[in-house]
């Protein structure tokens, strides 16, 4: 924040900021101010909601635009689709579980398909804007609480050489928290991806982005281990990569 910009000056900028009517330096100053001031955040949100009403136009989007968007989705993530978040069939999973499950090793054959009902709550998290910063504060707090909860399932993930580690905790309600700030930043066309391993089943828990910090995920079933792989941006339905980190339930 500019040392010359007082709180009252920042408050005066909130209306213009909400309408994207400030210059870059002012925008950065206001964003820093908002990160520490809930009242100011609420005011900006109020202004934006009013602007929403001004902006409304009842017209329809042009024909063909949705098809172009869908085409772009396919280009970005070749094979995610709705299936990514579902348990892979047992036989294909065994055939294609690849090196993730192999490294996790020791996973006993599943007695039955475990329906995890996984929700990837956060993908491609670029914590480079205000919403991300605010959300990360909340997630940080949640991570601390989950780690302190004796009922949570805890995982310590480590790289093969032990030089990089991450921690995860899954609360009894299925909400999981992963602290993976030690992972090296990847190029923008790469991403980390989180995997849950239950018996012989490996399932994607979500794409973590290229610079993960603390993230949330949700599961609806028990996990034996977690693993993180490096993948192409957008993630993959089945990984063939060796995990960057892996950890069993402690």
């Amino acid at each position, binding site marked *: 924040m500019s040392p010359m910009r007082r709180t009252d000056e920042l408050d005066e900028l909130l209306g*213009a900021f909400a309408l994207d009517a400030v*210059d870059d330096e002012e925008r950065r100053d206001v964003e820093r101010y908002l990160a520490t001031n809930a009242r100011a955040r609420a005011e900006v949100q109020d202004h934006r*909601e009013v602007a929403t*009403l*001004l902006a409304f136009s009842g017209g329809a*989007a042009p024909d063909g635009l949705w098809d172009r968007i869908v085409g772009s989705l396919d280009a970005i993530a070749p094979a995610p689709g709705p299936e990514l978040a579902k348990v892979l069939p047992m036989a294909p999973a065994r055939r294609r579980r690849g090196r993730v499950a192999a490294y996790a090793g020791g996973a006993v054959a599943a007695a039955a398909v475990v329906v995890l009902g996984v929700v990837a709550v956060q*993908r491609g998290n670029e914590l480079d804007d205000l919403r991300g910063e605010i959300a990360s504060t909340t997630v940080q707090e949640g991570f601390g609480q989950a780690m302190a909860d004796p009922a949570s399932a805890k995982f310590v993930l480590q790289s093969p050489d032990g030089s990089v580690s991450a921690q995860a905790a899954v609360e009894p309600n299925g909400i999981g928290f992963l602290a993976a700030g030690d992972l090296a930043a990847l190029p923008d066309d790469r991403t980390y991806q989180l995997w849950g391993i239950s018996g012989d089943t490996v399932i994607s828990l979500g794409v973590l982005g290229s610079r993960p910090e603390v993230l949330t995920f949700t599961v609806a079933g028990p996990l034996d281990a977690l693993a993180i792989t490096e993948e192409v941006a957008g993630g993959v339905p089945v990984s063939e990569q060796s995990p960057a980190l892996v950890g069993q339930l402690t």
Partner: protein
Amino acid sequence: MTAGDPSRDRLRTEVVREEFADASDAAIVVAIARYRQEALAEAYRRHAGAVFGLARRLLADQTMAEEVVQEVFLRLWNDPGRFDPERGTLRSYLLAQTHGRSVDVLRSEGARRQREEREARQTAEGGYDLELEVWDMAAAAKVREALSELSLQERLAIELAYFGGFTYREVAERLGEPEGTVKSRIRSGLRRLRVELVAAGVTVGGAS
């Protein structure tokens, strides 16, 4: 029915539409995070018209507006975690993204000049009414009434900033007013608009 059978596709579309028809913003975004294209389709069905309308109004260019719409929905798909349902509706989030991106485009070299040329041409042709285009919604009369409660200077400052894509400094220059005055008018005008809208029974904010 066979694979690719149009009747089966229609049936599936109907089932999916029912699944998400009453879903909240938060539920839709969580489903998007689960790679449910149907959820993105529902978000698009609900909000693409407004997103496109705002982008087109700012940019006055169909092609550029379509590109912005595409960017906004792809961003929602790639990074749904940015939307926080506790901080506003999905529509306001998408429109804020749309406005920010459109302003970026507008402030890029030459884009504003081209827009002004297009606007001048369209105005001359008499087929482009910026004022009326915005008011196609159920609460339009109330919004218009609330706007009329603002001073002319407040209203001009807000419209130039929001629909013109100008910074408050540029607005001040255009209106021949001090920068601080314009800055204050934008803020006070937005506050007063909110009060008027709430008093008129228009829902401002709140997740759908």
